[in-house]
Every structure is written in C-alpha cells, then in structure tokens.
C-alpha cells in the first residue's frame, strides 16, 4: 500500500471515529440509542397498523422494521452527509485533505450504526420464525449498493450546502416526504400497478423491497430491481462526484 493510501485511510478512519465519539460522548445510553429509535418506531407503527388501521400483512413488526432500518440509514446519513463539510469546516479549512473524504466518512459512520440496526432486524426475523437462508448473502450486496447511492447523493448535497446553506432544509423536507413515499408501512402490492416501475428507481424503496423479499419471502431480490439499484447508485456516485469536483474550488471561500 503506497504512503498516500495509508494517509488517506488514516484520515478517513479518524474522521469516522471522531463522528462516533462525538455522537456518543455525552450520552448516558450511548449506543443503545441506535436500537431504541427503530424499536420505538416499530412499536408505534405496529400498534397503528394492526389495531387502528387493520393491515393484513403478516408479522407486521418484521415487515415494518424492513422499512424503518433502510429509511433511518438513508435519512440520517444524507442529512449528516449534507452538513458534513460545513460541520467540519474548522478541520478542512486548515489542511488540504481530499475533501470527498468528509461526506464519505460521515456516510460510512452511519452505515456502522445500521449494522447494529440490521442485527436488530435479523433478531426479530428469527424470533418470528424466519430462518436464515442462502439469500441472506444478498444483504451485503444490496446494502453496499445503497451506501454507494447515498455517498454519491451526499457528495452533491454537501457541496451545494457549502454554497447554499438551505440545502439542509431541503434534505430535511425530502426526508419527511420520503417517509410516506417509501413503502415502510404499506406493502409493495398496495402501490398502483403503473407506478411500481417508478418506485423501484428509488433506491431506498428498492432496498426495502429487497429486504422483504430476502427475509420474509425467502427469495433473492428480483433481477430487474437489482439492475435499477445498481444503475441508480453508480449514476449517483458519478454525477455527485462531478458536481463536487466542480464546486470544490469555491469551498474555501464559502466555509
């Protein structure tokens, strides 16, 4: 490994560690928060959709958790990714590290929390009688694709947020909309037929569908869905990178 890569790896790892430490340093419950949030959401949504609006989806807690975990990852990592350059302005104004490392490290840090939440999901799946199967091997693949998607998107929003600070609020609003537009608490079959194709182009929705297919339906994700997820993820990384490249000359002036 060349010296340059060692330096980059070290900065990257230190930035991830910093986010982790700063987030949990002053909390008495620490990492437990990563579990508490999806548990509460799961309990509330299960209550509403089994006792108030009767949903005929079996094993609703597992079903809804398959929606909450991807949504949590997406909303939180995109938001923190968006503000990452501005939040770390005092670091990147002093040294010329590759600036892309900052949003990347934020997204990867969030992905680590997702590992905890995914473990929770798998524990619930086992508790509800879903057995591990060979299709679980797809889990890292679809997660990786989604992480690539969010990395690309964060590059774009983080760069824009440096120059136009309202990006942050745009992302927050998008997250609220997305909570309803991603099939978190309703099944894919409830979506009108003519909209299903469009839905699959949303990587978060695609991830939710894939998780349900893998865990609850004991099958591998549909290949059409995998193709769309792959295309959208790499397109996001490409165009996000392009925009970042174009805007980063102006960062110093705006930070």
């Amino acid at each position: 490994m060349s010296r340059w890569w060692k330096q980059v790896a070290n900065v990257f790892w230190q930035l991830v560690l910093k986010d982790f430490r700063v987030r949990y340093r002053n909390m008495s419950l620490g990492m437990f928060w990563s579990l508490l949030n999806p548990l509460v959401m799961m309990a509330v949504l299960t209550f509403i959709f089994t006792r108030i609006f009767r949903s005929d989806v079996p094993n609703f807690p597992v079903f809804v958790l398959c929606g909450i975990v991807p949504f949590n990852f997406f909303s939180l990592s995109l938001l923190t990714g968006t503000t990452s350059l501005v939040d770390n302005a005092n670091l990147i104004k002093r040294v010329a590290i590759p600036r892309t490392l900052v949003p990347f490290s934020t997204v990867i840090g969030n992905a680590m929390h997702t590992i905890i939440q995914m473990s929770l999901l798998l524990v619930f799946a086992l508790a509800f009688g879903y057995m591990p199967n060979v299709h679980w091997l797809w889990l890292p693949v679809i997660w990786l694709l989604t992480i690539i998607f969010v990395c690309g998107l964060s590059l774009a929003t983080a760069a824009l947020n440096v120059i136009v600070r309202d990006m942050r609020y745009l992302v927050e609003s998008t997250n609220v909309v997305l909570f309803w537009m991603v099939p978190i608490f309703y099944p894919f079959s409830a979506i009108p037929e003519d909209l299903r194709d469009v839905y699959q182009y949303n990587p978060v929705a695609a991830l939710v569908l894939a998780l349900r297919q893998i865990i609850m339906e004991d099958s591998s994700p549909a290949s059409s869905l995998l193709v769309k997820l792959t295309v959208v993820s790499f397109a996001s990384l490409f165009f996000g990178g392009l925009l970042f490249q174009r805007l980063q000359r102006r960062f110093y002036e705006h930070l």
Partner: protein
Amino acid sequence: MSISSFAGVAPGADNGPGDSMERDLLVDFRGVTKSFVRHAGHGLLRQTLQAFFSSSGVDRFVALNNVSFTLSRGEGMAIVGRNGAGKSTLLSLVAGLSTPDGGSVRVRGRVGALLELGTGLHPDLTGRENLHLNAALMGLTRGETIEREPRMVEFAEIGDFIDEPLRTYSTGMMMRLAFAIAVYTSPEILIVDEVLAVGDARFQQKCHKRIQELRDEGCTFLFVSHVGGVVRDFCQRALWLDGGNVVKDGSCDEVLDAYEAAMNVSTTPSAASAP
C-alpha cells in the same frame, strides 16, 4: 516529482510533467492574484438567484494582487502586514486550500497545517483523540502517529489531561497541544501564525528550540506576524503585504525596520503603506 502528502500540491496548481522547478525551490508564486466575491452573509438562495440572473458584475474584493515570491528549502520568511493585508489568503494558497484567480502557484513538499489557535481541535474529544485526528489530517499514517505520540505528549506537557476532553483545557494547554502535534508531524513547510505569542516564557523557549531543530533538518518556515523580535531570530527574509500588494520583499531586518517605521508613523488607516 514526488508528492509525499496530499497536502503537497495545491489543487489546480501546475506541477508540470517535467521537473521544471529547481530541486530546492519549494514555493513559487508568480503574479498571483486572488479575489473574493463579497457576499453579505452566506450564499442564501435568494442572493444566489439574484447573482445568477443579474447581468451586472459581482462585487469582488481583491485579496492578493500580482504577488510574486519564491521560497527555498530551509528558508524562513516572515509575512508582515496589517489586518486584511492578504496574509491569510497567501497562506491558504501555500497550503493548497484555495486556488488563485490569476498567476501560478507552485508548492512542493508537505505543508503543515495553518497553525491557528484552537482550530482543528474538537472540544468533546480528549487530547489524545485530538492528537490522532490532527496527526492524520496533517498527513501522518497510523504507524507514524503511534510512533510519534509519546514525543508529542511529552512536548505538550499537559500530563494526565491528555486523556481529558479538550473543553477542560486552558487556552495555554490547547495551544501547547496544537503546537506539539504540528512540530512533530515534520512538515517540509511549516506555517506559524501568531501562535508563538501565547504560552509562558519557558514553553516559548522550548518552541523556539524545536523550531531551530526543524530548521536544521531543512524545514521551511512561513511566519505570520504583525511585528516581533521572534521572527528576526528565525527568518532571513520578510514579505510586507498591504492591501494585497507586496510593499517590500527583502532581508528580514530591512523589511521589518521599514514596516515598523511605517506603522509607527502612520495614523490614518489607508495611507500607511505606499512608499
């Protein structure tokens, strides 16, 4: 040309395929101009749209105007000038943090971070965690950080506080830690920004000794100072900036004498510099 650090070459700087720079020329500014867009507040959407749709030219502020100088290995150069003279802009160009609008900036070698008090240290992290983060930012690998950590901790003289969060530190302790990290990352170009003015006399002496050591190892220095006897000890050269223009570039004593004289005489804010 080897780029030993990601801090090595300014983005967009012309490194050229060949080795057109002399071996020992580390910094080469030729006719460098840098201006900033004036924006009241930060780039809000309304202003961005206005700027986008209005055809009138944007209001620009010239921070550096046709600045040329070179710096060779082992040289120490002081940069003097009043607030707003363009010193920080010049340093940001050397550090590769921004790119010039005109002229060329060539920097070779690993540039140490801009040393400004407290920046880059996170209040919620411990001294040691900050040390690891900052060493990484300044281009050390993990192995190098671990190897140099004891020396940095010893130099900073903050004892058991090294494992306490930084918000419990006094200003002096923060400064010592920041300085210890910076001088033990062994940059090829070290930028020292007013930092030496802080700390007690004994620690200052230690800093001077360490800077002397670095100089003997061939480290190149850029000192930023309003004025001071310290810079005369370490710098052979000085550059006097005013309003983005080079007023004088020459031997340290010569430039500093002229600068100090001008500063003492001048009472009006704008007329002071022009000879």
